Each structure stands twice: as C-alpha cells, then as structure tokens.
C-alpha cells in the first residue's frame, strides 16, 4: 500500500502544525442545511438534524411537521421520526448516546439513537411551562434551561431527573446574549455552573449564588467552555476574541477580528486553540495569537473533542486538530529525529537501498525510542496506509533492539488498537475516533456505543480483543433479537439465543428474561431465567412471573436464606395454607426449617398448626413445653403483685393451664422413640408442681412453685417440715444418697457443725467422708470437726492430704508415713519449712525411716 506524506495538509500556526482531515463525504439527505438545527454527539457519536423552526422557510409539500432525522457521523441514516410535539428549545446527547429533546414548554423527551421515543419523559415544571424556555444547554449528564423570566433551572442526572432552581440572577437583568455551562465533572463544587452573558458582563450562577465578572468586556455574544472545563473563550460585539480562566479572573489571550455581530459558531479545538466561524471564513486562533484561516461556504457545526474539533457542513465532515507530536516528529520537513531516521531506513530497506543499514546504525543507541515513537505515530495517524508504513518501520527497528528493550506487547497492542479504530472509522460504522478520543471514551464505552448502534458482531470482536466484558454485548444482542423476533415461536428463538450464549461465563440471563417479560413473552422469560446463574436475579423475577414453586426451588438451591424467605412469603400470601404447606415440605428441608424458624419467633399459633399438619411431635412437644414455661413465668410474675379472690382464681386457672400444657407435651414426647425420659420427666414435673401447689396451700407459704425437686426438699427442710420433705422424696423417688448429700451441704452452709457431726455418726451412711470434709472446707469448719471426718477416711494417703490441707501437719505426716508416701512427706517437709523446728525434724526422721525401709 502506498502512502502519502501528510505534510501537504498541515498548516503552521505559530510553531505548531494543524491539520484539517476529511473524515467523511456526507451523502446524506438533508436539504436546506443552512436552516437546520444540527446536534452532534461527542466522541464521534450520532448526529441529529431537524428543521430549525426559529427560521422562516418556505415549506413545500404535504407535511408541515418537521422531521427529526438521526445519522451516523458518516451520514448513514439511523432513524427518523415526524416531530409532532411542541417546538424545540434544545437538542443534546447524553453520555449513553440518547437524544434529549427539550420543548419550549419544558417537556423533556428522550429518544434512542434509532429515533424511538423512550419512556423517560419528564417536565421542568409548571412555572417553566408558563414562561417558556429561551436558552437551553444539554450536556452529557444533565441540562440547564433559562426561562423567559431569567430563571435558571438545572437537571443533573437522567436516572431520576429533578429540576432544581438555581440562584436568582438579580433584579433588572437585561436579556442574556448567550449562556454556557461548566459541567459538574469540571467544577470544584461538583455541581453545574452556568455562565450567563448579560449586559456588559458575565454572571457565574450555581445553586447558591450568582456572581458578576468581566465587567465592561461585553456585550459577549458567544461563549465556549474548553473540553477540560478550565478555560472559557468569549466573542464580544466588537469582534474581540478573549480566552479566560474559567472563573473569569484572568484574560489569557486576546485576538481582534474585524467582524461585528455574533459569530456563526465558536468552539474549542482541543484545549489550546479556539475556532471561530465568521461569515465566510473559519479562523483558528492558537494560544499565542497566531491564526490559520480556512474558507467556508454555508453553515457549519462545530463539535469540540479532547484533541481537536469536528466540523460538519452540508456535504462533508472534517476533523481539525493539532498535529500530534509523534507525527510531527517523523513527517515534518527535514526532521532528523531518531524516529524519522528509522522510518527513512525502512523506506530504503523496502526499496532495496543498502544505505538502510547505514541509517539504522546511525541511531543504534536510540533504537528503542525510535521504535516506540513510530508505534505512537501509527496510533495517532488516521490514514491506514501510513499506519501500516509506520508499524513496519517499528517492526524493522525492533528486530535490531534487545528483546527487552521494547515492551513485548507494545506492537501487538498498537496493532489491535488501530484495527479497532479503523473498524470504528469505516463509513459503515461511522464513529470517527482518534486514539486520544478512544482513550477518553474507553474501550468499554466504545463497545457500548457499538452495541447501541446494533453493531453487535463488531462490538463482540472488539471486547474480546481488548479483554473486556463480552456479556454486555451478548445480553444486548439477545434483547434486540427478541425484540426483532416477535413472530418467532419460543422454542425456536430460544435455540437461536442458546446457540450464541451457551457456555459463556456469567451470562446475565435475568436481564434478557426481564426484557422478554416486558414484551409479554412470559414462557420465554421463564426458560431464559432457568439458565441464570445468579439466584439473586433469578428468584425475584420468577416470582414476578408467578412461578413461585420454581422460585422457591431455585432459592433453596442457592442456599441464600433471604431469597428463600422472599419466595416463602410470596407463596404464603398467594396460596391457601394447605397448598403452601404441601409445597414447602416437598422442596428441600431448608425451606421448611426456615419457615418454622420464622413461625417460632413470630407466630406460635401458626407454628402449632403447621406442626400438627405435618406430624412434628418433637417440635410440638417443645412448643407446648415452652408455652407452659412462659405461662408459669407469667403466673409467677402476676402472683408477686396481686391479691384478691378474682385474681387468685385466674392464677389458679393459669396454673391449671401450665399443667395441661406440660401433660400435652408429655403426650407428644410419648409418641416418639427415644424421648421416654422426656415424657416421664414431664409427667413427673406435673406431679411435682401439684405437690408444690398443695404444699403452698397447706403451709400458706408461696415459696415452692418453680423450685427444682431438690430445691423443694431443701426449702422444706429449711422450714423444718420434715414430713413434707419425706413426701416429696417419696413422690419423686429421690435416693437416700442424694438426700444425704443435700443434708450435708445444708448443714455445712448453715455452719451447723454439731448437726453435721451427728449426721456423720449415723450408721450405714450412703456417702463417704469426703463429702463431709468438702462441706467443712467450703464453709470454714473448725479443724477439730473436719479432723473427725478425716480420721474416718479409709485411705491413709487421702488422710495425709486432707490433714495437710487444713494445716494439721503432724497428723498428715503420720498418715503419710503410714501410707509410705515419701512424696507427700517431702511436700509436708516443704510446708513445715525445713527441719529446723521440732516438727520438721520429726518429719525428716519419718522420711529417713521410710526410705531406709524401702531400701531394705
């Protein structure tokens, strides 16, 4: 492929070059271009064209209604519709490339890029409707409107649009000449700031205040905010072009023209030069007051981009931009840069010129730099032939660099990015992005754009190549396919969709299903949902489709309790109880368990009903037993604060309830294997409570109910009611051993040492002396008492330990000697504190004797 040097198209402006490149010839069907309202989306987006009703034109033919047409940047038709709504105050594109149409009355409509009206209509309110809009600015994330009474309204965000009134601009304001907006992304406050040129100054208006600046510079007939939001260009009545900082505190540059009256258009070219369209010329003014002039015929629409400005005229679409450094570096006449040398070397190599080698050698030390610059230049160039030539130069140079010197993937990435850019720029697609614009838009953004334009295949290839998410493309494709296949039966359509979607990781089938449902294709939606991997998306939608059983099944599979409950509640309210219960017991046990857990905490009656139906004896028994305990506690609380016959009767009723409930739980437990003890225990509890009630009425002392069996006996013994105690013992079959333990502990706690000793003297005691000793120690009995019990311990070793523990060391030593326990003796020796005192001496003697005995 032969290539041409771009230098011929370059124009010098100061020390910089600018180039005007034709992007497309516009063969579109737009008649009378000069009288059209034209609105171009940023970053190579679509173009909306509609007749400008503000101009008086001769309308011929039948329909007097204007037609709104949408084209690609290459002039391809994307959609059209007859605009039968009110007259238009403003047009603009959102960041998602939806067209915003603002009527003079403040009605705001949103259209897809295919000209379909989207269900996102809203209004700026009654006040605006009454007054009408005079100026309107639409930026990608919001809009600003100026009403006839000079009130500014702002809407930020298209999702939940809420018109907000900005600060008043003060009384006696003259009608503004023009307005401009600094987008929220570029302001300190994060809210939109509106620039209003009025009288001889500019007002900066936000939600809280309106401040006047630039006094005496006006009237300013046009304002343009730089793409980075930091600078503002103004064009004043006297033909003076000024560049300001965005806060209007400083004039950065100044340029005089000989034109009075408003310019045709004013826009920024990148962030360092300003383009102003006058009657028949386009002036491009550089940062230092240098300028380039182009001829102009007819109307022009300027679209500022990050690195240049696009110019749309009746028959062509051009890009005016500063020549990127990398290109200037190589192609500028007489360049001796390393990259230019490498490029020449490759050219010579291709021509078979042996000097190629010599050239290459001259830059051998800067080869990596030269290669990288060639790659960068290829990326920046718009011409495929030159791109190829530049990449070839890079490949040539790389062959002579070390393997590590040039990034491994730099060439591959550059080639991929160029393929993407060239595909986007092709007239069939019509998205003329430069590499810097693509960077600003991001690959994901470009993919989304392509998808919205229904270039699904290209979008998929692009996403795959760039390694970004492909599922968005597929989901959009599937939705579009469903929309377009109204007449295709479900199973066929499903097969078509599956062929493309199957095996893709993390496909969002739910989104597709939701779309199918919105078109009324319920069963298709259900089968799509079946394939959704994320239960949190799947279950709610299945519920909306009325598929409760399937939703519950999926929820249970997911293990997410929240989803299970969601399905349960929906099902519970939608079905009769018996159906519902049948359904939850047929799914996995998790649903049933969760429902029971819910009932247990909120609706005990329902729980009982469910358990009865399903024969859950275990649950029923616990439920009734819990109820019994709760009633008993309530009765206790009530009895603590009440007297009087009536309440006593009701208390009796409560107690009767308690017994009844316990009996019923005994029955339920009785139905179960392995719960015999619970059943018997519950019955025993009934007799205990009856006995306690009897005791309370007999003694007139309400201090028994609720005590444990042992507690009751203790209470009776404490009150001296030995007969009662015997009765409880007999009734509950409390063993002799247990009873004796209780008595010993009671005597100890009461410090009744005599009583304890008396008990100790009883014959056939069912407990050992250790129990007595423990009671003594726990309550600080005198050593003499304790010693009596210790003396009766069967084993000498234990004796020694216990004696030692209460400090009776002599006895301890004797006992230790008896049990031949040398370790114990040593321990005692330690306690005594050596053999310096008589006891110590005695102990060591004992020890000696013992060891002698052992050795013998």
């Amino acid at each position: 492929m032969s290539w041409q040097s771009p230098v011929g198209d370059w124009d010098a402006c100061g020390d910089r070059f600018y180039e005007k490149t034709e992007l497309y010839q516009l063969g579109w069907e737009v008649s009378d271009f000069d009288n059209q309202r034209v609105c171009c989306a940023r970053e190579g987006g679509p173009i909306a064209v509609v007749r400008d009703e503000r101009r008086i034109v001769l309308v011929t033919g039948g329909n007097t209604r204007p037609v709104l047409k949408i084209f690609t940047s290459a002039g391809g038709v994307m959609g059209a519709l007859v605009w039968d709504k009110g007259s238009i105050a403003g047009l603009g594109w959102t960041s998602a490339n939806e067209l915003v149409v603002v009527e003079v009355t403040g009605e705001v409509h949103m259209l897809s890029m295919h000209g379909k009206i989207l269900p996102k209509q809203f209004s700026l309110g009654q006040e605006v409707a009454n007054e009408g809009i005079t100026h309107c600015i639409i930026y990608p994330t919001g809009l600003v409107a100026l009403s006839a009474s000079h009130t500014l309204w702002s809407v930020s965000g298209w999702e939940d649009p809420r018109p907000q009134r900005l600060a008043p601009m003060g009384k006696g304001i003259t009608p503004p000449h023009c307005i401009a907006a600094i987008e929220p992304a570029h302001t300190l406050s994060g809210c939109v700031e509106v620039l209003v040129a009025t009288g001889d100054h500019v007002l900066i208006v936000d939600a809280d205040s309106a401040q006047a600046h630039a006094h005496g510079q006006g009237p300013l007939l046009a304002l343009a905010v730089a793409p980075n939001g930091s600078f503002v260009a103004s064009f004043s009545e006297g033909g003076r072009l000024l560049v300001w900082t965005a806060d209007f505190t400083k004039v950065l540059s100044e340029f005089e023209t000989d034109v009075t009256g408003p310019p045709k258009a004013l826009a920024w070219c990148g962030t360092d030069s300003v383009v102003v369209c006058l009657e028949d010329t386009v002036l491009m003014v550089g940062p230092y007051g240098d300028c380039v002039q182009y001829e102009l015929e007819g109307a022009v629409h300027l679209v500022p981009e990050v690195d240049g400005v696009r110019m749309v005229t009746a028959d062509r679409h051009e890009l005016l931009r500063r020549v990127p450094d990398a290109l200037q570096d190589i192609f500028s006449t007489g360049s001796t840069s390393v990259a230019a040398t490498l490029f020449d070397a490759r050219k010579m190599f291709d021509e078979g010129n042996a000097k190629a080698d010599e050239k290459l050698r001259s830059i051998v030390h800067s080869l990596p730099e030269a290669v990288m610059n060639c790659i960068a230049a290829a990326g920046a160039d718009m011409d495929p032939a030159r791109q190829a030539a530049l990449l070839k130069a890079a490949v040539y140079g790389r062959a002579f660099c070390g393997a590590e010197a040039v990034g491994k993937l730099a060439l591959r990435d550059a080639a991929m990015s160029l393929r993407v850019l060239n595909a986007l720029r092709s007239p069939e697609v019509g998205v003329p992005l430069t590499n810097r614009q693509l960077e600003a838009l991001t690959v994901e953004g470009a993919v989304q754009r392509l998808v919205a334009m229904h270039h699904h295949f290209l979008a998929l290839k692009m996403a795959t190549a760039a390694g970004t998410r492909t599922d968005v493309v597929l989901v959009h494709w599937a939705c579009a396919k469903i929309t377009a296949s109204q007449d295709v039966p479900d199973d066929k359509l499903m097969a078509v969709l599956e062929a493309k979607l199957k095996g893709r990781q993390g496909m969002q089938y739910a989104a597709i299903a939701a779309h199918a449902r919105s078109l009324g294709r319920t069963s298709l939606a259900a089968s799509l949902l079946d394939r959704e991997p994320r239960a949190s998306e799947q279950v709610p939608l299945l519920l909306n489709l009325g598929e409760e059983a399937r939703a519950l099944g999926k929820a249970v599979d997911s293990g997410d309790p929240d989803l299970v409950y969601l399905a349960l509640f929906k099902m519970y309210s939608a079905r009769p109880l018996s159906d519902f219960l049948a359904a939850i017991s047929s799914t996995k046990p998790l649903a049933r368990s969760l429902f029971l857990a819910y009932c247990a905490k909120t609706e005990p009656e329902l729980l009982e009903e469910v358990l009865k139906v399903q024969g859950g004896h275990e649950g029923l028994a616990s439920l009734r037993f819990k109820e019994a305990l709760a009633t008993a506690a309530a009765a206790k609380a009530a009895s603590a604060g009440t007297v009087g016959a009536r309440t006593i009767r009701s208390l009796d009723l409560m107690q009767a309830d308690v017994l009844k409930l316990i009996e019923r739980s005994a029955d339920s437990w009785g139905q179960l294997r392995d719960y015999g003890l619970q059943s018997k225990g519950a019955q025993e509890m009934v007799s205990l409570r009856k006995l306690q009630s009897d005791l309370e009425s007999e003694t007139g002392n309400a201090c028994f109910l609720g005590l444990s069996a042992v507690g009751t006996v203790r209470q009776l013994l404490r009150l001296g009611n030995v007969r009662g105690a015997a009765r409880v013992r007999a009734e509950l079959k409390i063993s002799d051993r247990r009873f004796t333990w209780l008595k010993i502990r009671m005597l100890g706690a009461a410090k009744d040492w005599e009583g304890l000793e008396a008990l100790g003297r009883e014959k056939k005691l069912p407990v050992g002396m250790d129990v007595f000793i423990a009671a003594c120690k726990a309550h600080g009995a005198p050593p003499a008492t304790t010693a009596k019990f210790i003396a009766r311990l069967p084993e000498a070793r234990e004796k020694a330990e216990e004696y030692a523990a209460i400090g009776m060391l002599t006895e301890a030593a004797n006992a230790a000697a008896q049990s031949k326990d040398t370790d114990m003796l040593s321990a005692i020796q330690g306690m005594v504190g050596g053999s310096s005192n008589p006891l110590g001496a005695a102990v060591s003697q004992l020890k000696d004797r013992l060891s002698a005995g052992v050795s013998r």
Partner: protein
Amino acid sequence: MTSVVPNLDEGPLPLGYIREEARKHLVDALDSRRGKKVLVLDPRVSGFLGLLAEVPLLREHGVEQLLHLGAEPLGDVPARNIIYLARSEIQNAQFIAQHIKTTTKQGGTPHEFAVFFMPRKTTLCEHIFQQEGVFGDIVVGEFPVDFIPFDSDVLSLELPTAFREVALDGDNSSLYYAARALTQLQARFGAFPVIKGMGTSAAVVADLLKRMRREAGSDAPSVGGSALSMLVLVDRAVDPATPLATQLTYEGTVDEMLGISNGVVSMESQGRKERMTLNSTDRTYKDLRDVSFAAVGPRLGTRAKALQSQYKDTKAPDRSLAELKEFAGQLKGLPQLQRHINLTDAVNQQLAKPGMRTRVAIEHSLLEGHGLEAACESIEELMYGEEPLLTVLRLLCLLSFTQGGVPKKWHDGLRRELLHTYGHEHLLTLASLQAAGLLRRQEGGRPAFAALRRSLRLSLPDTDNHEPDDVAYTFNGYAPISLRLVQAAVGGSGWGQINEEGLKALGALHFERRQQDAEEDGSAVPSTSAASAAAGDNTKRRKVVVMFLGG
C-alpha cells in the same frame, strides 16, 4: 484502662482494611442523617463495635447518646434522628417496630428512624416491618461487615447461635454468611487454589463457595497469583469434644474462669474491678497466650526476676547511657507484666474451687478412655454438689461423644438427676441436646472415639507442658481433634495423612477441591498447570485459612 485495638496488619494477611471499611460504613451510616442523633445498638453489635471504632468517632458524627436495643421502650429521646445498628434478626426487627410505634404514639417532636442491618438487610426484617405497619416510617440500610477482626490472625463471624441453628433447627443461614464472607475474603486476596473440608457443613459451604464463584462469572477472583494457598473448612459437629473440654492454655483458662468477651477480660484485682484488653499487641500476652497455664506462673516469674537483676545491674556505676536507655525501654513492659501476674492470681483463685479438680479429672479419664464408671459417678456427684449446670452439661456431652453415647446404665439416671437438681424445665435442654446428637444413649459396638484416639494420636500423656513438642499440651496430654485435622490438611495432599481407620471413625464427609480460573469459553484449565503452580509455591510461606463452622 484504655482499650488497645489489635494491630491487624502485622499478621500473615493484612486485615486492617476490614476495620477501615467497617469504620467507613459506620461513618456513612451516621452521616446519612443530618444533625444530632441517637444511636441504638444491638448488644451483639456493640460488643465488637469497640474493636472497630471509638466513642469520639461517634461523637464527631453527631451521636449524642448511645442506647441499647432491647424490649423496653426508648423513652424520651432528645435528638430528632434515631439510628439503629443491629444484626438482621427477627427479634431485633420486632423490637425496632415496637419502639417506633410507642415513640410515635407518645407524640412530641417527630423522629426520623433509620435502621442499618448487619451484615445486610433481609426480606425477613422488612417483612416484619411491613407486618407491624412501620415499613413506611423507616429508612432501611446496610452495615455490610461480615468478618470481625479479633486479632491479626483471628476473624469471626460472631454468630454464637450458628451451631444450634444448623444442628437443631436445620437453618443454614450461618453457613451462607460464612460462604459470603469467604467469598469476599477471596475477592480481596485472590481465590483459594485448594479447599479441603471435613463434615456436612463444610460441604455445604464449599458448594456455596463454588456457586458464588460461578455466579460472579468473569468477575470471580483468579487463582493465579492469589495470596492464599488453602482453605480448610471443619464442621464443628465433627469435633464437639474440643470446646466441651476445659481449655488449659493461658488464654483458654482465662476464658474459662473469667470469660473473655470481644478481646477484653473483666476481673477483680486488689478489690477493684478492672478491664484488660487481651490481644497480640500486648507482647507478654502474645508470648504466653498459647502456653499451658501451668507454665505461665513460672514464666512470668522468670521475666520479673530478669528485670529485677537487670535493675540491680543498672545500679552499678559503670553503666553506659545506652544500656540504661535499653533498660528503661524494658521497664515499660513492667506494668504489663504486673497486670498479667494479677490476672494469673485471679484465675488461680477460681481454679482452686473444689469442683474444678474433679472436672478436669473426669475430662482426662474420658479423653484417655479409662475409669468410665468412676467418671460417671463423679459427674453425678458434681450434680449433687450443685456445680453450675453448664459444667455438668459439658461433661455429659463429652461423655456421650467419647463413649459413642452415655452408657445405658447411666443414661436415665444422670438425666433424671439433672432434672431433679436443676429443675424440670431443663427437659427442653435435654431434648435439644438429644436432637442435636450431642447427648445420646450408647448403642453397643466399640465407640468410634477409641479408634480416633489411636489413629489421630490424640492421647500423648507424656507431653511436657512446659516445653511442648506437640499440641497435646493444650489439653494436658490430649491433642484436640480439630488441630489434628488441620495438621493433616496442611501436611499433605487431601486428607491423606489420616488413615482409613481414622476417616472411618470420624464418620464425616470429607473432600478436597481445586478452584480453577475458568477460561472465557468455559473450558477448564488442565489440572497439571494448577498442580505445578502449587509446587512452585513451596518456596514462599503458605497462607492457609482455617474456618470452623459452628464456632
């Protein structure tokens, strides 16, 4: 005493981000309402909130008053905004609904209510609000904190009823939350190349993890380059013995005797109530926490003596300034040392109580498998002596687990005695323990625990508690099953280190899975590459996350 939050970035994984994010969520929740506000805390949240944020931070964001969420009404609230921070549980939703109703009925200044549910808002709670007719009056938000960091290497979900819910109620919610938390951990550090599990709950969690990974699709964290090497999931039901037995390390004993809650122990020291923070930031504690309690006293003594002798040295005239400086630095540890000495004293007093020795002796014979009759008798006598119910229940369950059920001869008698001594209302307790399989009757055959003891070398009575060479020192010669399981999981491929007999005795589902990075087209990566990557990892230190399901 000021509380010291643990330094979370010193451990094997930098966990500080958890606290940072939790603080951010807390501040966001507070700032969501303008002006002064009252913060009502679920007691189960307020406990560990101290680990995440301090009171001044709350004040900075307009909190005038802190209240606890409970059944009783709020009373007169000075601020317009009332913010709740609560676990998403039915009872909490009921309390909050009740509060709103009573406060609204009182009239007076209108209040605005906002509820932040931890770890997420649930259908269940919103359903309750709807049922109670207050849904329209509340703004419901989330406090998305799953793992609570207790130390640089300890995370907890703080779901104390999880075991009961899973074992008894069949409610697997806690397992879902465990999987969710682990998924988030993976999102932070990369996917676990290997997941090993033991027990039914472990399998449930592993399945959930797999599902969540599938749901995340291409967003799922990759295995390659993951900071994590392995996840070991152990179902607590596989080894109930470890928490049933009395802990004998320093940390364990302090917890048993005085109770550590949210990293803080309350004790009485020289007549004063004192709160002491226990985490790895305290160097003394870090060194001693896992030491057998028996060895703590001597070690503290050695440290104190070392300081003392150094102090004597410093008195010598020829000490250099640098040496003095170094000593002064060490002196800073002195109050810390003193506190630990007080703590050991407090623990010793509790240990001296009569039931304690019997308790440890019973446990020992049950775990070692001798003296069964005497052990049963001792348990009975502990009940006669009216030791705390929890002690008795622990021993009964340990008896049941180690013997494959309570011997028939004792089964009814012990339970009857429990009812007689502690009240018949504990019929329910016994029924629940039985239903959960923790307390059952012996059904012939050799108890599996005996086989387990042999196969896993649980019993090492000769372990030196002071200079241990095996974890068996933690229970005085008995190695916890849980730890042997983790050792086996970490030590080789699969559970291969455990022999057939052991696996049979464990009687639990066990598995090993590999997580892989799925390719875009869904084809799996050949397993050889995963294996070689794992082999390559051997050079750097492996990071294994062990999670016990059920506490």
